[in-house]
């Protein structure tokens, strides 16, 4: 009796190409029209934010240049011309009251909005992953303590506390303060998810196997557990960005975001409150920007979830 062949015969099918879950997800994403749309909008705004100085050089007005000739004192400072003073030089009109270029303020506003929300998301994600992983992996008292703290932070009336905190902090670096405060209130959401995932991973066979080979705890956490957490973390981080964009705008709207004259979308919205009856064109610009960025990041986050976790698809 001959032994079973250990090498495939001549007519056997070629071995399947090894495809990592990330590659599979990438392939799914490339066919997801919603994901591509989201990505395109995000890319557009990121480019706009990066190229802000170039763009304002093109139209010739910085974001803080006053143009009294663009506004009509007889109309209490509303911009001259129709649709908020749109013309060949002021592509999106002029700001009521000051005559500053709305387009320039919009592109610089994109910088603030994206910078703060991305950094705050990074803070929340890092802290949430670290603490959630610790809680899930260590278990026992550590888990109890971290879980209680997460519950506690989640039962704070967040907006009220953010406003209170930011308003009493010294005026050193408002951007950094906003990032830290938003990150602080954001981490438990990711922490909870990471903790749950870690709990279910902790007792899986491959972790047991790693333990049996005598791998150190440190190596198990960083080489076995953490890579498996990356998919859910990426999904929730992406879905946290639009929430943070909204929060940053809300805080600026309430007058405790970045300080003027730095432009931000929320601040433009808050200024528009006093003008919407006379100059409705003015609030449409930051409003649409906020709508589009939030929508784009949500689309992207949803698509990541569908691509990385096909079982949960169609949700």
């Amino acid at each position: 009796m001959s032994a079973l062949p250990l090498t495939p015969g001549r007519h056997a099918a070629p071995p399947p190409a090894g495809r990592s879950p990330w590659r599979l997800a990438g392939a799914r994403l490339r066919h997801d029209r919603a994901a591509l749309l989201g990505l395109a909008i995000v890319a557009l705004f990121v480019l706009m934010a990066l190229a802000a100085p170039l763009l304002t050089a093109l139209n010739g007005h910085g974001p803080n240049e006053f143009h009294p000739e663009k506004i009509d004192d007889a109309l209490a400072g509303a911009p001259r011309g129709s649709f908020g003073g749109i013309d060949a030089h002021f592509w999106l009109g002029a700001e009521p009251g000051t005559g500053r270029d709305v387009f320039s303020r919009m592109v610089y506003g994109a910088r603030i909005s994206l910078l703060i929300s991305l950094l705050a998301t990074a803070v929340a994600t890092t802290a949430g992953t670290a603490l959630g992983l610790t809680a899930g992996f260590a278990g026992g008292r550590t888990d109890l303590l971290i879980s209680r703290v997460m519950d506690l932070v989640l039962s704070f009336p967040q907006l009220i506390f953010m406003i209170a905190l930011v308003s009493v902090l010294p005026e050193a670096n408002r951007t950094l303060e906003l990032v830290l405060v938003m990150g602080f209130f954001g981490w438990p959401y990711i922490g909870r998810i990471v903790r749950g995932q870690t709990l279910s991973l902790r007792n899986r066979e491959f972790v047991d196997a790693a333990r049996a080979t005598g791998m150190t705890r440190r190596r198990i956490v960083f080489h076995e557990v953490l890579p498996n957490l990356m998919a859910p973390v990426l999904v929730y981080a992406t879905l946290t960005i639009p929430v943070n964009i909204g929060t940053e705008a809300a805080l600026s709207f309430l007058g405790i975001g970045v300080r003027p004259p730095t432009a931000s979308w929320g601040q433009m919205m808050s200024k528009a409150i006093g003008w919407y009856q006379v100059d409705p064109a003015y609030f449409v610009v930051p409003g649409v920007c906020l709508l589009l960025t939030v929508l784009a990041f949500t689309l992207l986050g949803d698509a990541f979830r569908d691509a990385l976790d096909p079982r949960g698809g169609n949700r």
Partner: protein
Amino acid sequence: MIRYLALRLLGVAGVLLVICAATFTIFYVFPADPALQACGKSCTPERLAMLHHQMGLDRPLWRQFTDYLTGVLAGRTYGDGPHAVQCHFPCLGFSYQNDTPVWDLMMDRLPTTLSIAAGAALLWLAGGVAAGVLSALRKDTLLDRAMMVGTLTSASLPVYFTAMTLMVLVVQIGGLLPYSSYVPIGSDPVGWAKNLVLPWAALALLYAAMYARLTRASMVETMAEPFIRTARAKGLPERTVVVKHGLRAGLTPVFTVFGMDLGALLGGAVITESVFGLPGLGQLTIDAIDKSDQPVVMGVALLAAFFITFANLVVDLVYALLDPQVRYA
């Protein structure tokens, strides 16, 4: 059950205590001397010292904190001798701006916030669930897709943007409704509703979208469960299957979120109140923070935290009642 309830109530008390301590710390680590503010322009050192004493600010920090807690639970007396001021239970102190008890200030504003939250909640719950169920039953049809695109967009709308758009379209151009102001429901129910339709709509549009998506996801999952197949196999009419079997199971996650959202909103719809100029708890908070009126901020923060934790408790209790499998951990 009794034990569970007692433990949970203890938990609520613990959370409120920590939140109280947190607010206290925030305003004492970064202080703007409140006595100096209360003292006014023609302030003398003697008067300032007197005010410090009157407000209890000359006592050690931990004593100030326990004084505050005593006040909340049993009422307290400020100052002594002829200047003593009695503050009845539940004493959250006096506003630095106008010496009104914080509790009275909040109770004055609560009806506005309550009106905004209740009306909006009713709208978004009805609209969101209806849209979600319809979408789930017509899964993958054109209607479903259109609905999901619509809800995604409306969930991305900042509430102040919706608010201003509504005000321009409905009030300024359409002339259909007045600009919002608060009319007590007791004096003029129709005027009350008319004035609040726009804030309700602005808030509901945002929340309904999220509820529609949540309901759809949950219903799609539920309708694929074996017990639904069983119900159909028994020959029940589809209507009964959907309403009695599907909805009952499918709406539990929606209910959880609803409890928490409503709890959070009762602490003050800060942005909505601010855009529409409605004098609710959110507006009170913003004004108080602006004027460093610490007792008011602490009062509202505590009340808001109370609503949030209480809503969580109610949700959990109802869960425990509905589903005996929930462990009383």
